[in-house]
């Protein structure tokens, strides 16, 4: 397989065949994560910069572990302590990073389009680990991977994305990816947490979780940022929970055995009832495990493509 993409900016660039390649590659790496010695030499001598200009623990750690399990050298760079805080432009920061010849830059940035901006300016692979509200492709791919571990196919399945869609790169990437695999996606939130003209996201729109959940096969809760309350988008967390928290009663409206997902970190009792997060049909920790395998696949596909004759 010659991977056709220099960068991973969003799932929208991927063909169905590309997605299958990622899933197959991730499945083969998943096995490594279950071994007593969790390391293969595949990316030995390759270096990966983890450039996180926005706080992140789990995604950064996940990429770090993914890189190290493939024997790549990983280097972390956070916004605090970096020159970005000293007023250096993003262009100068990444050009400086590039001059150190990494094989890939994994980046997170608060601005939508930031990964695209960087990818146009550096020769190495750029892996988008979240840009503003725009895209989080590895999250969507790991969500898909997780669902495909419990389902043979997404065809005919209904997935509800519940919560703050307006500010969610996870929701946007999933709205692009899951329908490609045959799933129906519903988004459900108060109008203040949906973008105006939300139909542009190509999902069914709901404002009432009870209606959205009827007939659902999986529910993906989104994290609610506290600053949404300050911005006047909702009265308070208690009221949000009253209307939109995924409770056992609400989940009972979904199809039997419906799965529960959350990209984390969880606000227990706000987005999801505490018991549900730990219940048998919760896939939340499976998502974390899948994340390492999927990110190993993404790093592998992008870093080795040149060695296989692909052109940047």
């Amino acid at each position, binding site marked *: 397989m010659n991977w056709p993409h220099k960068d991973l900016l969003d799932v929208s660039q991927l063909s169905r065949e590309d997605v299958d390649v990622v899933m197959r590659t991730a499945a083969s790496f998943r096995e490594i994560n279950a071994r007593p010695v969790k390391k293969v030499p595949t990316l030995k001598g390759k270096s990966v910069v983890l450039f996180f200009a926005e706080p992140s623990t789990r995604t950064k750690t996940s990429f770090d572990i993914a890189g190290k399990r493939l024997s790549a050298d990983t280097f972390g760079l956070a916004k605090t302590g970096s020159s970005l805080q000293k007023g250096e432009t*993003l*262009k100068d920061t990444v050009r400086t990073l590039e001059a150190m010849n990494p094989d890939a830059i994994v980046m997170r*940035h608060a601005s*939508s*389009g930031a990964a695209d901006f960087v990818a146009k300016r550096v020769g190495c692979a750029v892996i988008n680990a979240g840009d503003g509200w725009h895209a989080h492709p590895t999250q969507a791919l790991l969500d898909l991977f997780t669902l495909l571990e419990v389902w043979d196919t997404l065809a005919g399945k209904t997935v509800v994305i519940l919560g703050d869609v307006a500010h969610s790169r996870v929701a946007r990437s999933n709205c692009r990816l899951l329908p490609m695999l045959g799933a129906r996606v519903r988004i459900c939130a108060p109008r203040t947490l949906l973008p105006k003209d939300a139909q*542009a996201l190509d999902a069914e729109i709901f404002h009432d979780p009870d209606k959205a959940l009827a007939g659902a096969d999986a529910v993906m809760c989104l994290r609610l940022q506290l600053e949404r309350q300050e911005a006047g988008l909702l009265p308070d967390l208690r009221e949000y929970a009253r209307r939109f928290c995924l409770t056992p009663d609400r989940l009972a409206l979904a199809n039997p055995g419906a799965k529960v997902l959350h990209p984390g970190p969880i606000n227990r009792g706000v987005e999801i009832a505490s018991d549900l997060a730990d219940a048998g049909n919760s896939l939340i920790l499976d998502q974390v495990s899948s994340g390492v395998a999927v990110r190993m696949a993404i790093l592998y596909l992008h870093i080795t493509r040149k060695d296989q004759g692909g052109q940047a």
Partner: protein
Amino acid sequence: MTAQALAVTNVRVPGRDDACDLLTADGKVVELSPHDPKADRPDFRRIDGRGLVLMPALTDAHAHMREPGQEWKEDIASGLAAAAAGGFSNIMCMANTDPVNDHGAITRFMLRRAKDAHPHGPRLFPIGALTVGLRGRELAPMAELLEAGCVAFSNDGEPVADTEIFRRAMEYAADLAPVIDHCEDPFMAKGSGANEGAMSARLGLRGQPDAAEAIQVARDILLAEYLNVPVHLAHVSCRRAVELIAAAKKRGAPVTAETCPHYLLMTDAALLGYDTMAKVNPPLRTDADRLALIDALREGVVDILATDHAPHASHEKETPFEDAKNGISGLDTALASLWELVRQGRLTPADIVTRFAWRPAEIFKLPVNRFAPGDPADFLLFDPDDSWVVTPESLRSKGKNTPLLGQPLTGRVVLTVVEGVVVHDLSAPGA
């Protein structure tokens, strides 16, 4: 350099069927008459206008010259050079300089810089601040600004949020000079260069609702009618605002309005790929808005064209979308880009003359050439068939920030004359 006697011969003039000859002397129009191939005019320098379009030089009621204070983006010398290359004789420059043009000394400084750099024009007409420091609290000393040379007042870029202050500013200015308002609800429009709609939803950008503009347009119309004092609405970008203005004008409200070439030529589809060159405030809207604006301009609901020339340095645009400055550098390319609408049959050359020369001069009481004997000899010659590519080098403005960069245009200003003096000649060496 003094004004030469000029004879532009065998030239097409918008609104006239036959080729014409224009004679000027002492910086004034002598006559515009049907082309006479046999005329012998030994006292005039002859300019062959065959294949060219003769138009009055344009008036831009809305430009940012950035001087004093932001000379890395533009200065009055480079801005007026771009104006000359774009076919303009009159440039009104906004007050959001550093320091703000809220004091007669700043106005006089601007005028002196213009005189030093371009003694024969284009002419600069500063717009004074409406409120001190553009802070929207105390009224600026408008009589002093008027005396120093300002021709209008505006808080452009920092719209007055407090309606009571804005009302008083309109009343106070009413006996001095027109008020130009940048219509934007400052709370609702916060921090955005993208229209709120399907495109911003997909791109994950904070959108600016067209309602944020229209709400302020409605406010200004209500105040203009209530106080019976005029207001000029800057860079109208959306259908909702057009509809409000049309209804207000039908009632006889003392309201005038402008729009810019980019709102007639582009939509928020230009934001795909997060192109910061297309980031402008108000933002590029939808195709329905674009078409409504073209109709409104043709019908006179929107009175005039203006560039909102907003030059920026490259590093201010070479950033992620949210961090990029708003604005498009427009003086060099305004007319050439608009000619696409002429080719499409959506605007006539006569529409452009009315909306980009005569009407703005009328609203702001500036010198203008209507080709009557004695009018200032301000004119441009336009080659509608000249194909060129917009490159940084082709722009006289320091601001290379235009989404047209790299694109081909057909039609170009080849000569600009202000009061009988050639201020731009594309064929001249080094032009």
